[in-house]
């Protein structure tokens, strides 16, 4: 219920929302949890395994119980914590893991069968028959035990990723974090202050303590106003720092859109930040831990600190007759604040015999709560003391078993926390994460004054590391009470006392694990599933290991903790993968002829990041084959134009350019004359083929290398490696010019005619023999012409600066049309090169040698080159290897398929008998039948033999004749003509 005049929301706007279809009104600034508590709702969820009714346990991101689904349809988001979810107009929330309704859940029958469901139940029960596990047991268990469900529809939400840099990252904006940020910011450092709450201030918003004579929240507001006005400060609310990584890198999740209606899609739902900080202060505070006792999971039982937070921040009392159960002084503050707000306190139960007394409420010294009743909501508790047992009517019990410092980030780089007996808690190990300094409650300093002190000190230490002088500063006055605690983890007795609320792990389960010799904390965790729920044990780890320590007769320090790993809170995969949905950030590389190709209806094919036209459909053509066949015939009969700009172009200059080429290619280039082009073969150092292409000598010390489209990046990297790492003494410069030049293949018997129509000085008969190159002028534009051919026809490649590419392509097409020619795409290019036996990366796929592709002779004897030594290994030159041949159908079946395997005729088509495989296959319109390139054992020695092709996937077989891989014009008359 809302307590008038209490809390920090003041005269906030009213907000209408719904929970399980019921309408509620809350205030702007409410979380779903505070608004539901204000509306008298205590039952908010069902537990994972037993479907026990559950209410809110805490008031922060560690909440294990109050998980809800927000929204509906494709945008619905399961497992949102009601304690984090802010309400907004039209918010639709629904409970999860219940059927048919939250109040009446049939699967809560699991709870009645609980005696059978203890730790290890699944492991022991569903052992056999083995086949039943996947088919019967697992689906059944999964249906019964679960969290909220995804919609199953594509996620319509946007996610982003972002990067930030700063001198000092302050994690947490409570008193320690605010102080650290203020000292650093006033000293001129670039500061990022990140806090996971929607409003900064940490516990100062939940407490009634004063700082410097004013209310803590007012002091926080003042500091935040100062920080917010400074240019060197970035305040990041709703941002949870989830991981600490090497070199001061932190991952952080910003909830950008969860607190707004989803119909405004201008903002992303979440943003995942990578923050690189030179120094960091961990001021993440502490989490209050419950005490385990029988049925301590009744809705209405929560941490004492959460009760104060609901009262002091949101002006909500979670009950009308509240009790408190504590083993430390802190819990008494809850009672005091409630009394001050006019809420009835039905008693404080303190396990310590010397607990402080009060005039305002009854204190049961040396007493323990040993039971709770009220199935869907707390009705009463049972207290046990030396005087015996008694019952107290109460609808809300605040429990404080002490505070656990939120040291998780300090463990993300393998450090183990240290146990401090005096506060019965773990604290970060010194130097746990380089550059990260813990301060305040996360460091075990629980008084407000200590938080301020440690925050300021951590900032000063960071400033010193950064070489900055800290600004002068007086710490404001604040309470500095000692933290008095006597550990109490679990109240002994019958029944089930809960440790891990979400995963339904009880004290008994942990003891049973110990009894079955799962004594290591890591084994206990996995056997009981304690700490494996979405809260990752934030509410239960320390208590569970204390119970384990007790059961095994060891100390807590000796028992140790499990490993805290990132992320600190659950992070959606969509946030981590922001930018990777669909096309995401993948760049698209478009050639200069792209628009003209698309205008002609060419379907574009992805080639790495490039897009290239598949074919250019002509009117009346109904499929790619028809267009492809026409384009092949057009090139062989007249002239075709094809954009080849995607091939890698690497400009190599300097006195040692020739030496570099001799070293990276198997064959020689230093002997190539200026104005000539040579085909080159490149090996990897292990002797296998890396890439091939032509290199032109444009001048005495100037070469232009081309690579295949696929290997352009790899070859560039390789050349730089060879130069910088192996031959840094060579005077040579290497630069990629792929995108600087638009280059077009002009191929076919009429190619010279087409080229001449554009050149300012036409080529004469006898000029520009095959493999010539040089500068030309195209309508006044300086260009390069290469007489090279991939199609086997008389052909040229004409290169112009990229800005002229579009107009040259259009001009070429227009003039080609007049000669009976036109553009051709990748399909025709592929057929043309297979007809000529030219290889691509289908053949040089990383497992082929120079010998395999019939180029053993290209490995020059007189010089060293990359890969030469290892290429000479006997296994790489064995004639029995699978070597390149051509195939054509020789039987009734006429279809050849790339990827199909080759066998001897008559032999079984099994792997043991495999003799090779087809790498490229196409219908040759020139020859009128299918042709293929293949690798076959002893290949070239078997010309004229018959082999059997089997495609096991498609169940297709064909008899093939082994032929020369150059199907068309093997003498090369056309290319030289």
């Amino acid at each position, binding site marked *: 219920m809302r307590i008038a005049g209490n809390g920090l929301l003041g005269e906030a706007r009213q907000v209408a929302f719904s929970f399980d279809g019921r309408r509620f009104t809350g205030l702007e600034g409410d979380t779903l949890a505070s608004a539901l508590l204000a509306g008298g709702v205590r039952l908010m969820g069902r537990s994972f395994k037993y479907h026990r009714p559950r209410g809110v346990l805490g008031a922060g991101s560690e909440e294990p119980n109050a998980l809800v689904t927000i929204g509906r349809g494709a945008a619905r988001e399961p497992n949102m914590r009601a304690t984090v979810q802010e309400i907004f107009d039209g918010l639709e929330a629904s409970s999860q893991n219940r059927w048919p309704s939250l109040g009446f859940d049939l699967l809560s029958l699991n709870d009645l069968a609980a005696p059978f469901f203890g730790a290890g139940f699944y492991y022991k029960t569903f052992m056999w028959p083995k086949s039943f596990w996947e088919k019967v047991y697992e689906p059944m268990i999964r249906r019964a035990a679960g969290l909220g469900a995804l919609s199953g529809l594509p996620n319509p939400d946007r996610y982003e990723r972002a990067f930030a840099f700063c001198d000092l990252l302050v994690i947490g904006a409570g008193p320690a974090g605010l102080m650290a940020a203020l000292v650093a910011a006033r000293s001129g450092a670039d500061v990022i202050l990140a806090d996971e709450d929607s409003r900064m201030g940490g516990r100062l918003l939940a407490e009634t303590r004063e700082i410097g004579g004013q209310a803590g929240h007012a002091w926080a507001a003042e500091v935040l106003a100062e920080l917010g006005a400074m240019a060197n400060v970035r305040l990041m609310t709703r941002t949870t720092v989830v991981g600490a*990584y*090497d*070199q001061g*890198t932190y991952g952080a999740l910003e909830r950008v859109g969860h607190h707004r209606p989803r119909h405004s899609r201008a903002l992303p739902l979440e943003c995942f930040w990578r923050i*690189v900080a030179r120094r960091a202060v961990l001021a993440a505070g502490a989490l209050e831990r419950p005490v385990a006792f029988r049925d301590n999971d009744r809705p209405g039982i929560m941490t004492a600190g959460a009760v104060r937070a609901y009262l002091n921040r949101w002006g909500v009392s979670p009950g009308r007759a509240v009790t408190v159960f504590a083993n430390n002084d802190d819990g008494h503050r809850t009672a005091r604040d409630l009394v001050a707000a006019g809420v009835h306190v039905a008693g404080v139960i303190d396990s310590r015999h010397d607990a402080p007394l009060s005039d305002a409420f009854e204190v049961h010294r040396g007493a323990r709560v040993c039971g709770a009743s009220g199935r869907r909501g707390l009705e009463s508790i049972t207290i046990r003391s030396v005087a015996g047992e008694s019952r107290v009517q109460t609808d809300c019990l605040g429990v404080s078993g002490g505070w656990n410092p939120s040291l998780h980030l300090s463990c993300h*780089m393998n450090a183990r926390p240290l146990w401090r007996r005096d506060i019965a808690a773990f604290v970060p190990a010194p130097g746990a994460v380089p550059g990260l300094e813990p301060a305040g409650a996360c460091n075990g300093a629980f008084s407000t004054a200590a938080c301020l002190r440690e925050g300021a000190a951590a900032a000063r230490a960071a400033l010193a590391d950064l070489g900055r002088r800290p600004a002068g500063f007086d710490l404001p006055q604040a309470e500095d009470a000692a933290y008095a605690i006597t550990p109490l983890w679990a109240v002994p007795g019958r029944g089930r006392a809960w440790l891990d609320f979400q995963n339904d792990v009880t004290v008994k389960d942990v003891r049973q694990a110990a009894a079955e010799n799962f004594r290591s904390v890591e084994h206990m965790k996995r056997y009981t599933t304690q700490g494996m729920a979405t809260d990752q044990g934030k509410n239960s780890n320390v208590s569970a290991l204390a119970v384990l320590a007790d059961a095994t007769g060891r100390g807590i320090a000796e028992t140790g903790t499990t490993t805290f790993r990132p992320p600190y809170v659950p992070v959606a995969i969509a946030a981590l993968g922001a930018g990777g949905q669909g096309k995401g950030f993948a760049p698209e590389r478009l050639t200069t002829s792209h628009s003209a190709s698309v205008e002609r209806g060419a379907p574009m094919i992805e080639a790495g990041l490039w897009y290239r036209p598949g074919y250019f459909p002509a009117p009346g053509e109904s499929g790619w084959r028809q267009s492809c066949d026409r384009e092949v015939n057009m090139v062989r009969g007249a002239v075709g134009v094809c954009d080849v700009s995607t091939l890698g172009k690497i400009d190599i200059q300097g006195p040692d350019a020739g030496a570099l080429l001799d070293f990276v290619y198997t064959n020689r280039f230093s002997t190539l004359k200026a104005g000539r082009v040579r085909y080159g073969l490149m090996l990897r*150092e*292990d002797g296998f083929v890396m890439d091939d292409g032509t290199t032109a000598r444009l001048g005495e010390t100037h070469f232009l290398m081309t690579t295949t489209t696929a290997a352009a*990046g790899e070859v560039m*990297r390789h050349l*730089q*490696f060879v*130069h*910088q*790492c*192996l031959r*840094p*003494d060579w005077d040579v410069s290497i630069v990629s010019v792929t995108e600087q030049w638009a280059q077009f293949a002009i191929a076919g018997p009429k190619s010279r005619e087409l080229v001449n129509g554009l050149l300012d000085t036409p080529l004469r008969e006898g000029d520009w023999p095959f493999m010539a190159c040089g500068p030309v002028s195209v309508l006044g534009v300086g260009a390069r012409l290469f007489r090279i051919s991939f199609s086997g026809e008389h052909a040229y490649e004409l290169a112009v600066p990229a800005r002229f590419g579009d107009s040259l392509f259009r001009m070429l097409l227009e003039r080609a049309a007049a000669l009976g020619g036109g553009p051709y795409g990748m399909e025709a290019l592929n057929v043309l090169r297979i007809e000529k036996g030219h290889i691509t990366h289908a053949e040089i796929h990383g497992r082929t040698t120079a010998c395999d592709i019939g180029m053993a002779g290209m490995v020059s004897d007189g010089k*060293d080159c990359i890969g*030469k*030594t*290892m290429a000479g290994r006997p296994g790489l030159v064995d004639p029995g290897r699978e070597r390149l041949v051509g195939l054509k159908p020789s039987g009734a079946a006429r279809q050849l398929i790339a990827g199909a395997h080759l066998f001897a005729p008559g032999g079984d088509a099994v792997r043991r008998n495999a003799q090779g495989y087809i790498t490229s296959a196409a219908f040759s319109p020139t020859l009128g039948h299918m042709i293929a390139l293949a690798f076959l054992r002893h290949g070239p020695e078997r010309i004229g033999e018959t082999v059997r092709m089997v495609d096991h996937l498609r169940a297709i077989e064909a008899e093939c004749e082994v032929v020369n891989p150059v199907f068309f014009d093997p003498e090369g008359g056309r290319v030289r003509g």
Partner: protein
Amino acid sequence: MRISCPICGERDRREFHYRGAALTRPAPDAGEAAWDAYLHLRDNPAGATRELWYHETGCGAWVVVTRNTLTHEMPGCELAAEAAR
């Protein structure tokens, strides 16, 4: 993870291409054992390593990075061209 390129300064490792251990290429006649070691045999040290990275989306420099596999410290980064001289 960030690498301090001697030319560009501290940069995100996503700008770099990783090659592997920084080794000396054997002479062509160094023998099978030397070549086998160069191509295939790698130490897996718990401690200091020297490895080659290529600042592919930066300046194009190959750099030799000294990295401690235990502490993740990167005490050194020099141009491979200078390291090789």
